[in-house]
């Protein structure tokens, strides 16, 4: 495999949920990006995109997250995160929050850094121009296009194209793939009954495919659907897109 990106420096936006709950995902991003020739940095100032606060109505609590994000990532040409939802929140909500804070300077800084923020799939396909990242994953996999990755970050079919290029993969279609899994951040605990009804339908569709793995580009959605799959002893495992892309022939999975 050729080195695609010699000399490109990428700031990894791990996202808070991945940092604490799913560290395997940002590790996989590091692995993939370095394999493709990028230099990866992890600015330690970063915490969270603030989406949980914004979407629950607590804008004032979200503003420090915006400031933090700007502080951590200003100056990088490429900020890459393995989450359509968090990247979508940065793009779609940070400008609005800067306006809420009535801070024009922050607004300008936000515009700068937002323009350089990418979901992993966008960075690979659009910036590095690759779909075949040299991955090998000989398993039956079904892909759920998460709502925020498609409708807010607008990653389109990039994750799917990356998966199609994985060697050995058996990619099966997920019925009713475009319907929400019911996570919705605090929706999952504020409206738990509706959330579980949606997640159960999603999990049922996943099981119908006979896949060994359910893959998405967002671990929060995976945690929701996976919570049902695990409770019901379905045997279906959940995996983030980055972790499939990190896996190579002779790798450890």
């Amino acid at each position, binding site marked *: 495999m050729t080195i695609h990106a010699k000399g490109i420096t990428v700031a990894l936006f791990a996202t*808070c949920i991945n*940092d*604490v*709950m*799913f*560290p*395997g995902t*940002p*590790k996989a991003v*590091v692995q993939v990006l370095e394999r493709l020739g990028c230099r990866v940095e*992890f600015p*330690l*100032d*970063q*915490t*969270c995109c*603030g989406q*949980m*606060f*914004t*979407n*629950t*109505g*607590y804008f004032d*609590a979200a503003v*420090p*997250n915006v400031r*933090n994000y700007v502080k951590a990532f200003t100056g990088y040409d490429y900020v890459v995160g393995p989450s359509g939802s968090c990247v979508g929140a940065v793009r779609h*909500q940070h400008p609005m929050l800067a306006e809420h804070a009535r801070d024009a300077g922050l607004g300008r800084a936000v515009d700068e850094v937002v323009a350089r923020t990418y979901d992993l799939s966008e960075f690979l396909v659009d910036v590095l121009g690759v779909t075949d990242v040299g991955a090998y994953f000989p398993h039956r996999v079904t892909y759920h296009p998460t*709502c*925020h990755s498609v*409708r*807010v970050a607008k990653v389109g079919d990039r994750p799917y194209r990356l998966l199609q290029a994985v060697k050995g993969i058996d990619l099966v279609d997920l019925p009713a793939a*475009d*319907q*929400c899994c*019911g*996570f*919705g951040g*605090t*929706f*999952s*605990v*504020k*409206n*738990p*009954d*509706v*959330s*579980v*009804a*949606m*997640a*159960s339908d999603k999990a049922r569709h996943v099981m119908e495919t006979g896949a060994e793995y359910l893959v998405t580009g967002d671990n929060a959605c995976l*945690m929701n659907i*996976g*919570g*049902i799959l*695990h*409770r019901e002893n379905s045997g279906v495992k959940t995996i983030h897109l980055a972790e499939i892309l990190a896996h190579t022939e002779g790798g450890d999975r």
Partner: protein
Amino acid sequence: MTAQAQRRTPAPPPGTYLGMPKFQKNAKEQLANEQLRKNLRHATGTIRAKRAARVDEVPEWEELRLAGEAIKNRTLRHLDTYLVQLEDSLQKAGAKVHWARDAAEANRIVVGLVQAKGVDEVVKVKSMATQEIELNEALEEAGIAAWETDLAELIVQLGHDRPSHILVPAIHRNRSEVREIFLREMKQYGTPAPEDITDDPAELAGAARRHLREKFLRAKVAISGANFAIAETGTLVVVESEGNGRMCLTLPDTLISVVGIEKVLPTFADLEVFMRLLPRSSTGERMNPYTSMWTGVTPGDGPQDVHVVLVDNGRTNALADPQGRPALRCIRCSACLNICPVYERVGGHAYGSVYPGPIGAVLNPQLRGIGHEIDQSLPYASSLCGACFEVCPVRIPIPDILVHLRKEVADHKRGKPKLEPTAMAAAGWVLADHKHFELAERVAGLAARALPNTTFLGPLPWPASAWTRARDLPMPPPESFRKWWRTNRGEEQQ
């Protein structure tokens, strides 16, 4: 004689919309109804597929949506001008114009107009505005019977029920339920259903046609809403599928139309855009079967006494809020209801309003304010999946307005001792600075080390039960990514 016996029309269920508990509680009740979920899944799935097929036929669909958005935005920006123009055009065409600040005033005007005609019954075209102001009950209190003539509205009215969908208000009923309602109720209010009627849709529609026919031919006064009101010409437009609207709009001598002030369109040419957007978005048809337009009074043809009641009822509150204002672009197509995964599972009754679904969740708290529990809960009745915006023919950013209204609700609750503001303040502290965050990470890591063989957590007590009642929760691993990075990669970055 009891009050019940004095009623002219079937009584709706007891209680008021505003007195309803919060969405979460209503939703839980509705979710338990397996038949309802089955009916809704089938109905919304069918109409969703029809809409998608019809929209796919129009290559310039996105341009049409942009045009619809732009026309509505311009209208709302200059609403005062267009409303005065509409009033002027209507009066020149022989219609009488009435202005109503709120539901009570609108009802008072309509009741007065009907009483002045000396009649004790009216026929109605399906109208969301009259549902919103609860006109039927106001008329009933004045001893006037208001007969719904749209098939689904008739099912709702005869069923002592409330509508659960904007376009198909009886979506929660299946045909055997409809048969029972017709058999039991029609004979009490007019032409009965045949005793041997089956649940065949054609037979049910036939029974409704015969039941309604005598009311159409007898009525002296009709009440309608309007889908559009053209300022330039004073033309009102009603878009419908069954022809019942056409009967109401042409047979009686007096026609009273109750119209929300946001229904105005500047020119007749603007109508073209909406006549292409609305049928495909709502029923998934290229064109709806009946479109009626009338401009004041045409001597010797149709109603000779024409009234238009222009209703605010909270709309100017929404207009005054730049973030909430786009909700007034709504043309009541219900595409957002049909696509919504939340609506599909709980149905319309959980929303506590004649406007359910995503548009209801943004419209009701704006029209009614956020003083009641139901309206405070509605902005949270969404997973913010964004499917509603994708199908909205006038591009209302429903998820953004929901988030905006959540802020209004959170501000309203601030300072009250509740779990949520406290939890948000604590989480805010943790996530505001990476040093706080790292402290919390260490706590999570300690918890993981305390339960070394646990990878998933099962059922937990409140408040975690909201998650774990049906879903397992993965344990955080002992080492965070940040810690791994510091240990393994930290030096090379410095």
